[in-house]
């Protein structure tokens, strides 16, 4: 049986994300931002094994991330460092003030054997949609 966790997703800065944000093609940025922090009790409840990632799904999209325990998080809240992985599941609505809701999206989390996409794979399908040169 697949266990699905219902959680509130928030995104934000971390030291690792900040230190590599001008080196977004680097493995450091990938390692710092393609990850999902989960409270210890939720992590254990999901039964994530060593070789597993997590699939985070919201009404706006889904993304596969590596998972890690974070004892600072309360149960029911997950944290993804700001960047293209987090934004894969953030909605467009700005509430009339220009700013999307980067924190507070309802999400479902489940363990997965699927690999985490690297930064190139994350954008691979995009420019083909249009643009001057295509």
């Amino acid at each position, binding site marked *: 049986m697949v266990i699905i966790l219902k959680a509130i997703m928030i995104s934000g800065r971390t030291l690792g994300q900040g230190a590599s944000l001008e*080196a977004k093609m680097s493995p450091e940025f990938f390692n710092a931002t393609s990850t999902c922090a989960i409270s210890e009790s939720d992590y254990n409840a999901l039964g994530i094994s060593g070789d597993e990632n997590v699939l985070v799904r919201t009404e706006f999209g889904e993304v596969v991330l590596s998972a890690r325990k974070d004892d600072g998080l309360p149960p029911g809240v997950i944290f993804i460092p700001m960047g*293209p992985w987090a934004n894969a599941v953030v909605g467009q609505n700005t509430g009339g*003030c*220009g700013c*999307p809701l980067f924190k507070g999206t309802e999400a479902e989390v489940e363990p997965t054997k699927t690999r985490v996409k690297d930064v190139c794979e994350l954008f691979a399908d995009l420019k083909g949609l249009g643009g*001057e040169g295509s």
Partner: protein
Amino acid sequence: MMEEDILCPFCGCLCDDIKVEVDEGRIVGVKRACRLGMSKFMGHERIAAPMVRRDGELVETSYEEAYERAAQILKAAKRPLLYGWCSTVCETAKMGILLAEEVGGVIDSTATVCHGPSIIGIEEKGLAGSTLGQVKNRADLIVFWGANPAEAHPRHTLRYSSNSTGMFTPEGRGGRKVIVVDVRRTRTAKNADKFVLIRPGTDYEVIAALRMIVKGKGDLLPDAVAGIAKSDLEEVADMMKAAKFGAVLIGLGLTHSRGRYKNVDGALSLVADLNGFTKFVVLAMRGHYNVAGFGQVCAWETGYPMAVDLSRGAPYFNPGETAACDLLARREADAMMVVAADPASNFPRKTVEAMAEIPVIQVDPFPNPTTFLSDVVIPTAVCGIEAEGTAYRMDGLSLRMKKVVDSVYPTDEEVVENILDRVRRLGDDN
């Protein structure tokens, strides 16, 4: 050779005491910078040369051709969006506003997806602000609300706030109380005397309850507000009223959560209320080193700090309509120029998909996902390290950034000026 008193071009702290060791025109060592600043000074992979997209692929070209293509794209567009401007100096912003005016476009900064809601909140309520110097020298109570400087502004606490030592705060951290309100126990929260864990999206309710207690209406409150015991809130209100000089430092926890600018309006109102009892100030923990500077330049040039539509003959500002994410989400922008920012990483995925459908011009020292979506890519010198200019610290203090080493790349300002020049010449031909 050791260069002293260098400003750090990373976060809104704009630390001005960095020592940089330069050997044969290269930076070989950095002292006093945090991990973020150290990483910036020591450098990353650069965009090697200008590029334009041909047959779907980015190929290297000359600066001249890149400027020409950029000018053609902007000139041909009916609704060009000129976005970014946070990791560059004020001189670039000034040139960008001239360019936006020339092409009848919309100019917006990364503030709209950061502290933009704070700016709207300030417009609603007004700001009892101060410099960081006043906070350092006088504040005996620091409140971090939805802010985590331990990770986003690592030297803030030591230089300006909770752990700093100032003229009237000789005991440093020992003489101060620190309150942290957040949805998780952050590294910043571990340094707090009082930590209040709130549920995501309940900032407004908690602030409103605190305002009631401060104003003597606490007896009307239920025993718990948004899951926080009333006694906890009363303790926070007592600490605030007991302070001689309190500083509320607000972060993206307020602006990125349900309520957005109304959360900020609430925080500013709480500070206004507290000024009826003692001295309180409030500051936004601005992210990039000169995101505040773009707001300053844009406000004095156009009357508005961000999201300014210059297509109507007079500047027009209505975030939600004229902000970058909204223009893209509505598929309204038909070309985009990105200067010193990476919206492909930092906008919601669906919004980025709209970027991929239109011609994009990127002006930046570093390759990033916006490069993937760009049709013209123009590499530049790194401001504050390879180019001088003016930047504004998060508290609105303007500081002059020095050039530390030479660069083979043109500055952001030169690139935008070159594109502006070509746009004007294209105009002459018509």
